[in-house]
């Protein structure tokens, strides 16, 4: 039987624009009373299992200027490596952890902050384990298609060395752009550079 290979075209992307916070974090930009709270403001909703960490970072443009109008979303597994998703078939994720966070960044500095847990490793398609990582998605004025990337942990050297995606990267000298650095107990810094010598590796995935 011949399959119908007709496919629809994906809806083309458009920039999130300068007012993405009105739609996605309205309480943050003084539109109160419509939603009780901004979605994604808490990943931890109860007595969560795992190591609590804080992720902080800033998105910089090609001139080195911090973006103050971006929206940053993260998506990650729980400490056991399970996603809180209907598509997770390997088990049930920690009920006190959503795995998804959204930050409008600080109003004055643009710095984003996520209070989360360190994710466990999850399997690659062939069963090898990927190093613990957090998926990032960045949208803002001037970004025509949301940018995907991943944050890995610099202090997971052994797991990172065996990671099937990190090891595939041609320019290994750029791999550090995906590494969060531990600053003080529990705080990891992950700055994102849209351009320049330190341009973050973005994913076409």
């Amino acid at each position, binding site marked *: 039987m011949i399959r119908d290979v007709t496919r629809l075209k*994906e809806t*083309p992307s458009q920039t999130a624009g300068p007012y993405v916070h009105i739609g*996605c974090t309205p309480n943050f930009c003084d539109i109160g009373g*419509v939603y009780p709270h901004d979605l994604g403001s808490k990943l931890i909703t109860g007595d969560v299992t795992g190591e609590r960490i804080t992720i902080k970072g800033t998105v910089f443009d*090609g001139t080195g200027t911090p973006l103050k109008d971006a929206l940053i979303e993260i998506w990650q597994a729980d400490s056991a490596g399970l996603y809180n998703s209907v598509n997770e078939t390997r088990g049930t994720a920690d009920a006190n952890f959503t*795995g998804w966070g959204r930050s409008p960044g600080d109003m004055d500095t643009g710095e984003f902050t996520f209070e989360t847990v360190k994710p466990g490793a999850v399997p690659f398609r062939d069963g090898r384990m990927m190093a613990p990582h957090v998926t990032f998605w960045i949208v803002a004025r001037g970004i025509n298609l949301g*940018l995907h990337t991943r944050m890995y942990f610099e202090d997971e050297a052994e797991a990172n060395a065996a990671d099937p995606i990190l090891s595939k990267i041609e320019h290994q000298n750029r791999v550090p752009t995906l590494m969060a650095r531990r600053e003080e107990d529990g705080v990891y810094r992950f700055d994102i550079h849209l351009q320049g010598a330190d341009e973050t590796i973005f994913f076409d995935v």
Partner: protein
Amino acid sequence: MTAPADDRPAPGGESEPHFTEKKHSPGQTPGGQRDKFGNSFYMRDRAWHPPALTPLYKTSVARSPQRAPLSFATTISEETSPVFGNDVLGPLDNDLIHNFAKDGAGAIGPRIVVYGRVVDEANRPVPNTLIEVWQANAGGRYRHKKEGYLAPLDPNFGGCGRCITDENGWYEFRTVQPGPYPWPNGPNDWRPAHIHFSIFGHAFAQRLISQLYFEGDPMIWQCPIVGTIPTPEAIETLVAKLDMGATIPMDARAYRFDIVLRGKRQTLFENRMEGL
């Protein structure tokens, strides 16, 4: 908000391309019984989307990555995504005319219902997915401290709303038609009337933000942001169509806007465990 439902074309009816829909529970991806590790999504067609660098939209110049993105097939990290149930929604979340208004008041402007269907590239409905929208008021003014347009705020209009698609991928919300407005780019650039959309889908690979435009608006074809999209064919898919058949008589006109998210690759061996 129920009127459009009465006039909707029946799913699978003559106006809808036919597809075979697998039985699935609410909240599950159609075809969710398949092994998630052996399949991936259709790769994103980057010639169809706007490129990162579009100099006529000036802000993109310093914010566009210059190195080639790293391509790889999706993994479980991209094939999963957060879940939002209807318990997230308040009763007025899909009614922008009233969700910020004082008691008994409503937003000023042409009243419209926006409705449509979210499907994937294989034309399978995407049920139970969150859609967030935001827009300027009828005068073209956003409620935002960084907004400097001289058109006045509407005290009864906030500009945000959200809804979740039903089991067949349908969504709807009520609002006022936003106005066009000038913006700092070229010396005299104007945005066409538009509504911003954020859609989650069922996998982070499907995550998408775009904009809805209105049929017949001549400003669409003058806009540098619209112009970041390479082809008129792709732009046309962002133009909502006036649908008089779905209007609420003596109340609101209706615009239909369908959304297509990336689709999961189908294999001939759907029930075979692959990968792991």
